[in-house]
């Protein structure tokens, strides 16, 4: 039977082609951390230091979640055949701790966790605006 799959170029180095992915990962983490810093102080000012710490806990967990998701995507197809579930476990642990611990409130923790999503939207808008120029 004739092989109809396109030829695979041998010259391309996987490590070189992965630079885009690592750059995107670093950029997303940086935007998440910047947004966390920008939102933390207004929350402290308008609500309380305790609520701001709750927000910070959620945001830090969001950074870890994004890092684990990126690691799972990086390993997909190379070392693993399917996506891992470790990042979901991090989130479940955060919400359970947020609901069970007396000093924590679930809403600021959850909204802090969603900071990574705001970073994704910022990155997508930035890419969109750069490509339209």
């Amino acid at each position, binding site marked *: 039977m004739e092989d109809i799959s396109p030829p695979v170029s041998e010259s391309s180095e996987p490590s070189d*082609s992965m630079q*885009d992915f690592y750059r995107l990962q670093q950029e997303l983490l940086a935007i998440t951390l910047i947004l966390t810093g920008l939102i933390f102080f207004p929350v402290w000012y308008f609500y309380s230091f305790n609520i701001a710490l709750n927000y910070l806990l959620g945001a830090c967990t969001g950074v870890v979640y994004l890092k684990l998701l990126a690691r799972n995507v990086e390993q997909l197809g190379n070392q693993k055949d399917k996506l891992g579930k470790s990042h979901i476990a991090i989130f479940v642990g955060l919400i359970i701790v947020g609901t069970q611990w007396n000093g924590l409130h679930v809403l600021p923790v959850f909204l802090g966790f*969603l900071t990574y999503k705001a970073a994704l939207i910022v990155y997508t808008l930035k890419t969109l605006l750069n490509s339209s120029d």
Partner: protein
Amino acid sequence: MDPIVQAASVFSAALAIGLASIGPGIGQGNAAGQAVEGIARQPEAEGKIRGTLLLTLAFMESLTIYGLVIALVLLFANPFAV
């Protein structure tokens, strides 16, 4: 807590996470499969494909997370508990 409220909460939590996982699960499977296929065809574009996959998975997984939050709040911080 009232046993009927407790039973309804557990049932609702199961429904929330179960139904919220169906769509993103199918979508993530499709996206990951197509991405791996694309990498096999064009290894020189691996970084770009994996980057796009990371963004799409993060967007898709947030739908599951919303259902998970509802389920966990119903189980561990039930607002209907007296």
